[in-house]
């Protein structure tokens, strides 16, 4: 919403400065986006008089002038044809910035003659495009500020433009008068009365209007208009053109400019039909499918059933409340004009405007809510302005429908206002504030004015009182804790778990990424998602069409981007939501890590090697341990399709998968443009069980003073036998005595087969025996060892390696 200071002063009697007004507007909730004050750039310039002008000795078109200024007589070289003795001019001194030529002046020498400044043209001061000569003022004293002279003699030229942002609840402030009312309520002046003198009709209106019964209740409660015949639709007067131009509107003709003026001045959009082009009577009715209209913006709109139009006998002439039609629009040839003032239902206007994608000033206002009670007053005022500017004679007013009754009242509870806002606003002030805003008070009940459709409850009264009182004045008051003493923990166990996973991964050397929650359809499908219910209906790009089913695609895409920038070795992770459905809550937490390339840069110690699944497994286990997963889990090979089928595994507790780790499927890497090797893991923290009770006490520690005994075994087994089978078998040989079993070596591949036979490998275990009661004797140790060998060979089908 844009307006000028002088426009505001049409409605507001005020002595307040521009700065005070701007500050108050922002504080009132009418946030000032921009103030353009033409006076600011003209501030340094003063008025001077040319005392003497003579031909420049070395240039035909230049004159050397002696000029009387506030700093005495100065010599100025001037090229303007009208530079001559006796004229009053606008002086720019050395050091001044001249906006129209974007130059800061200095003392110059022009063809050998010193020049101390310049005398400006209108264009050089950005006052107009006039550049035929320097400004000659009809009045003014030497030394007087040029802006002061302008304010007195050409106020429009220094009229500041104010641009405010209007929140959707304040349609009343979409008219200058509404803005003035807020400022007056704040105490920044007095709202000038608005007198509405009905214009008597001189003849019956030849155009009849009818609202279709289907729309009378809702779409169009009230439609009024009248014919004005014999008008001359020339250009509107300068003051009106100037105002429209300043707020960014193009003056078109007096009739159109008047409707625009009412839109911005009083938030009363109007429409003018060229009566000669209206056939028969006007009907406000729902459009029929297949109807269309060439609108004033030059576009043809296909209408759908139910959209509201104003139609004559030949069809739609106007998109009601949104935009008029080209065919019945007014032009310089218009002699008889039908002036329309109607009240349209905001919801209907919004729906139609949205469907047709038309953003007009009228739609913007009607969908937020104009004052229904002002419909007829607006018509009368506009009629008068048409008569004043264009002449002619007005008919009687034709009306269908009636002003809808919006009367309602809410209780003003001054104590509650104080309690909610936390400011001591006396009851009298509260009441005065509401009255200044147009509320009618009866006892403790306040009836909002017809121009405030947003006021729909007691809370709205509180807001009005508070914003007029000024929230800038609000002083903070401590909010006491609900309980005394040391506050308890506030994070939930799952929130702590998420944090632990994140911090552990960073400690393991991974860089945390935050990637988008949506990915493209192909990747969604490749990672088990892409279902219709996870599709976004209005995606912002084809790369972001589906909710991500997994965090890995985002990390792989990040890896590909980084590889393209020359970073081949990567450790990336993300902790965040993945989506297994499209319903609220069909999301779950994942912690995913991705290792790509080598474990380390090249160094003198041969640290560098390609990442492998045991790196991923180690890191996954570290995270699982950090979030409280038990050390013993089952491992299966039931992995999803984006994992290498032979080089990945799932860690699970019964039916609950805690983690999957392994190599990313080479086909996936190829699709996503990632150069391998790439190993990864995905952890589902929500699947890790929480302890049934949370007790800080640790179980007792039983240490034995007796010497532990380590024994190593090597078994020859089939190459496909998993080490865990051997480990579990060995551990089961004597649960009391065997403290741990660990794989410390494996021998596989061609060399192993040469030694141990085709399809064979060897696994080496170290077993630690921890006696509890007495030192073990050699025969006892031998007995346990024999049992271990027996169990392992039975479980694996292998043999002790000779």
């Amino acid at each position: 919403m844009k307006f000028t200071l002088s426009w505001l002063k049409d409605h507001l009697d005020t002595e307040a400065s521009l700065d005070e007004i701007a500050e108050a507007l922002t504080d009132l909730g009418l946030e000032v986006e921009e103030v353009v004050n033409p006076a600011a750039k003209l501030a340094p310039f003063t008025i001077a008089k040319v005392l003497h002008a003579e031909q420049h000795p070395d240039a035909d078109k230049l004159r050397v002038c002696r000029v009387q200024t506030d700093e005495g007589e100065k010599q100025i070289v001037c090229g303007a044809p009208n530079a001559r003795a006796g004229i009053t001019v606008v002086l720019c001194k050395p050091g001044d910035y001249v906006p129209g030529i974007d130059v800061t002046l200095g003392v110059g020498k022009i063809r050998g003659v010193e020049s101390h400044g310049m005398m400006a043209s209108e264009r050089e001061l950005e006052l107009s495009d006039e550049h035929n000569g320097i400004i000659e003022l009809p009045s003014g004293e030497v030394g007087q500020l040029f802006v002061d002279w302008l304010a007195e003699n050409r106020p429009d030229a220094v009229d500041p433009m104010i641009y405010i942002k209007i929140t959707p609840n304040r349609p009343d402030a979409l008219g200058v008068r509404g803005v003035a009312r807020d400022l007056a309520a704040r105490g920044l002046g007095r709202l000038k009365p608005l007198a509405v003198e009905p214009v008597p009709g001189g003849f019956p209106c030849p155009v009849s209007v009818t609202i279709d019964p289907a729309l009378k209740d809702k779409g169009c409660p009230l439609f009024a208009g009248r014919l004005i015949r014999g008008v001359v639709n020339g250009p509107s007067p300068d003051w009106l053109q100037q105002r429209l131009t300043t707020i960014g509107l193009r003056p078109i003709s007096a009739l159109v400019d008047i409707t625009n003026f009412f839109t911005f001045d009083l938030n009363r959009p109007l429409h003018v039909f060229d009566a000669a082009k209206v056939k028969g009577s006007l009907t406000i009715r729902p459009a029929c499918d297949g109807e269309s209209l060439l609108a004033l913006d030059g576009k043809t709109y296909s209408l759908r059933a139910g959209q509201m139009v104003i139609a004559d006998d030949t069809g739609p002439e106007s998109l009601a409340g949104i935009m008029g039609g080209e065919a019945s629009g007014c032009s310089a040839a218009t002699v008889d004009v039908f002036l329309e003032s109607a009240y349209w239902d905001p919801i209907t206007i919004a729906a139609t405007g949205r469907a047709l994608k038309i953003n007009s000033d009228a739609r913007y206002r009607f969908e937020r809510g104009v004052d229904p009670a002002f419909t007829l007053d607006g018509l009368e005022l506009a009629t008068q302005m048409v008569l004043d500017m264009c002449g002619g004679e007005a008919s009687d007013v034709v009306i269908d429908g009636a002003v809808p009754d919006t009367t309602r009242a809410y209780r003003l509870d001054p104590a509650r206002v104080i309690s909610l806002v936390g400011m001591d606003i006396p009851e009298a002030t509260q009441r005065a504030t509401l009255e200044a805003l147009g509320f009618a008070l009866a006892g403790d009940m306040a009836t909002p004015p017809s121009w405030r459709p947003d006021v729909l409850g007691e809370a709205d009264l509180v807001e009005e009182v508070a914003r007029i009182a000024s929230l800038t004045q609000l002083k903070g008051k401590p909010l006491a804790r609900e309980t005394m003493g040391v506050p308890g923990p506030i994070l939930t166990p799952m929130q702590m778990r998420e944090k632990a996973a994140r911090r552990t991964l960073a400690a393991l050397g991974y860089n945390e990424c935050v990637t988008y929650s949506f990915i493209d359809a192909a990747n969604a499908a490749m990672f088990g998602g892409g279902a219709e219910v996870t599709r976004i209906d209005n995606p912002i790009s084809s790369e972001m069409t589906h909710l991500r089913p997994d965090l890995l695609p985002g990390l792989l895409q990040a890896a590909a981007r980084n590889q393209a920038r020359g970073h081949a070795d990567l450790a990336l992770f993300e902790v965040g939501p993945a989506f297994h459905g499209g319903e609220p809550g069909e999301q779950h937490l994942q912690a995913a890590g991705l290792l790509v390339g080598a474990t380390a840069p090249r160094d003198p110690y041969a640290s560098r090697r390609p990442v492998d699944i045991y790196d991923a497994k180690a890191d996954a286990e570290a995270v699982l341990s950090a979030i409280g997963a038990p050390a013993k889990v089952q491992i299966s090979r039931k992995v999803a399709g984006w994992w290498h089928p032979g080089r990945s595994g799932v860690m699970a507790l019964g039916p609950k998968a805690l983690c999957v780790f392994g190599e990313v499927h080479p086909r996936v890497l190829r699709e996503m443009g990632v150069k391998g090797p790439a190993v990864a893991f995905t952890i589902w923290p929500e699947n890790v069980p929480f302890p049934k009770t949370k007790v800080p006490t640790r179980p007792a520690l039983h240490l034995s003073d007796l010497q532990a005994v380590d024994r190593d075994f090597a078994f020859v087994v089939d190459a496909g036998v998993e080490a865990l089978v051997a480990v579990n078998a060995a551990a089961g040989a004597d649960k009391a005595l065997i403290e741990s079993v660990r794989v410390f070596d494996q021998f596989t591949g061609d060399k192993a087969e040469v030694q141990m036979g085709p399809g064979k490998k060897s696994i080496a275990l170290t077993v630690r025996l921890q006696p509890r009661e007495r030192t073990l004797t050699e025969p006892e140790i031998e007995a346990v060892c024999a049992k271990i060998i027996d169990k392992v060979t039975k479980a694996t089908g292998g043999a002790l390696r000779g």
Partner: protein
Amino acid sequence: MADLDALRGKYIYAIQSATDEAGLEEIRLAALGKKGEISLKMRELGQMEPAARQAAGARLNVLKDEIDAALRARKAALADAALEARLAAEWLDVTLPARPRRVGTIHPVSQVMEEVSAIFADMGFAVAEGPQVESDWFNFDALNIPPEHPARQEHDTFFMARAEGDARPPHVLRTHTSPVQIRAMADLGAPIRVIAPGRVYRMDMDQTHTPMFHQVEGLAIGRDISMANLKWVLEEFCRTFFEVTDVELRFRASHFPFTEPSAEVDIRCSWDGGQLKIGQGDSWMEILGSGMVHPKVLAAAGVDPAEWQGFAFGMGIDRLAMLKYGIPDLRAFFESDLRWLRHYGFASLDMPTVHGGLSR
């Protein structure tokens, strides 16, 4: 006893001359071994008169101790010399690089979320969460944004596809964290104090917007919680978060459908030379929106507005991170550029706490 002096001289000389441990051992055996000269002399004592035996025995013992000490000293000296020689040979180039170790980082969004949680935890706020796919009721209706409200259009909402035959209004990707207010109040009732950080989504992508970003919602409901309390809480938050001794906030009346009165909050700052300084200067920067929870919102969440009142606020986490840590571009937050992650990321153990400070 001249023979004892000769013995001493002979052995001490031999010990000093020995060049290795084996030589020393030979000398020890020759002198102090079972058949060594000193041992034999000791044996001879038995044949002496008691008086003579006493005198000779004492002298022999002194000699024996002397030789023994000399042996030990020489042995230690030889060992020292050998170690010196070994150490001299064991030279390594200490300027070679250390073994490489990967250094991980925490994303600024996570770090700032933890900072925010730490501060509000100290003021008694718990952390609530909610789904990111929301029903339009939680995202809009319950927050007093009816279907035809212009604010709905201004939210640039992402809508989920609806299966054919599913006549329900489409779900949305939550456009703000405010629906968590409703869920938290419905679950926990009043009084309540929570913050709700998390991802939010709007259909907007340009220089300063990304279709996903992060917000933190705050909600405090009690018997007499006022807007003045809100201002204090935000002042405390900003002072602590930006790690300055003083902040000045300005409340400006505004409009949000879910609060009434509503205020946008500006913070005093300066931008000298492109460097943002919070708490001083002549500029104001908008940092968040806030207000008193609308009675309709309380009612939608099952809290009686006649009995309870309180405030809510929402601010951008990414923006807080940008302002505090001087990060210029929002889009880079989600690009996972390793150089960016390393530069703007935080160490794994940089855990923000109120007692230890938020940042290093």
